[in-house]
């Protein structure tokens, strides 16, 4: 889970792509995904991918880390790509390149644009309650992720996942998730109380000025 890392890259960077307006980047990314969907040529998909890698380098993002992140969705697509082998190896590579292309596009978007700015831009399309929930989920991921790190350490101390003892390992994993859920439920109540004290009226107002990159003096 590299949400925190992407957020760090998005808020810490100051390249041209970081400075571009979030709305423009969102439109650019969606257009690029549209092209990736329509393209049926391996070569053209490779060119798009190389273009994306160029953006990564120009945006001074850690190429190795971004590349590894973009590989994650491939794991689940392998079954589908394998079943499509009847259509030839070209189609197999088209599927894989499409996954790589769309994943890389989205990772570039999120590693150059802070999440709240993207959600604020999405507010023009989606209703208010969805944007509020997106903000809440985004914040919750950060709260729970630190808890999850501790739980993971605890799980490892209890022996982690051992193939010799699958039942015990699964039981410990369930306990770990159970504790995470409990912590999440408790924190949500505290979070709600804090929001009410601060005058929460059912929506989170986001100022667009926070999304404008201010050149360091």
């Amino acid at each position, binding site marked *: *889970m590299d949400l925190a890392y992407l957020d760090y890259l998005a808020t810490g960077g100051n390249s041209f792509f970081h400075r571009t307006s979030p709305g423009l980047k969102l439109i650019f990314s969606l257009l690029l*995904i549209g092209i*990736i*969907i*329509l393209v049926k040529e391996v070569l053209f998909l490779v060119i798009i991918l190389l273009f994306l890698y160029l953006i990564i380098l120009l945006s001074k993002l850690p190429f190795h880390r971004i590349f590894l*992140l*973009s590989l*994650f*969705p491939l794991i*689940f*697509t392998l*079954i*589908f790509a394998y*079943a*499509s*082998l*009847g*259509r*030839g190896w070209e189609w197999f590579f088209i*599927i894989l390149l*499409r*996954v790589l292309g*769309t*994943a890389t596009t*989205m*990772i570039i978007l*999120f590693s150059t644009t802070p999440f709240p700015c993207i959600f604020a831009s999405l507010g023009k399309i989606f*209703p208010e*309650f*969805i944007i*509020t*929930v*997106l903000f*809440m*989920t*985004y*914040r*919750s*991921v950060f709260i*729970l*992720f630190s808890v*999850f790190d501790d739980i993971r350490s605890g799980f490892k101390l209890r022996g982690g996942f051992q193939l010799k003892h699958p039942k015990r390992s*699964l039981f410990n994993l*369930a306990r770990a*998730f*159970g*504790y*995470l*859920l*409990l912590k*999440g*439920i408790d*924190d*949500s*109540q505290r*979070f*709600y109380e804090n*929001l009410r004290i601060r005058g*929460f009226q*059912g929506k989170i107002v986001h100022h667009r000025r926070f999304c404008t990159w201010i050149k360091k003096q």
Partner: protein
Amino acid sequence: MSHIHLPDGILPAWLWLAGWVFIVILLLVFREYFKKDKMSSKIPLLGMLASIMIISMSLEIVPILYHINLSIVSGIILGPAWFILCSFVVNLILAFFGHGGITVVGLNSLIITTEGVLGYFLFRSLWLITKRIFLAGFLSAILTLFLSTFIALTIVALGTMDISSAFNIGHKEHLDTDKGLLKFETGESGEHSGELSTEFDFRKFAVLILGFGSIGWILEGLISGWILSYLHKVRPRIFEGV
């Protein structure tokens, strides 16, 4: 594994658009319900549960290409209506990282919503019948995942069908007799307009999905059962509304 880990551009447009239309209709139907409760503690709870689902879905069990969903547990805690919004938000955020395409967010949300809603009602009924929380959680998770995997497979099977040929739209025999000023031709007349075709080995795909999935259902069933019994032991108040 129950939701579709397909990239954009694989399923035909009519199918993923239908997914978006259905989920938007569902959200619109419950819009007033969400608005009425917008000041309640449900929204922060939804955020927390959505983030737990995102965390669990990001941890893949590589050998069986599976990840835990926790959709049934979240559905039980949140209740069916709020879970619709939760599943949409989870799928939207996951799609931002390429975990399932942006276009299939609607379809994936519908599948995960089915899991949460069905899981909620099954758990409630089984808990009443068996009086054993682990067994109710385990069985409801397994049955729900079994059904949702079949829904996912049905969607992929629908993707292999060409709806335009089913309705004889844009086919050569019609175009030949058409002597009007305007003649409509598809770019790939004679070919399937959708991406999935008969060359896609659906049987192989279904066997793999059901094979790996069945191991995953048992794992998820056990984990869900233990989580629910743990929560019931330490915080029985959570189950008051169930």
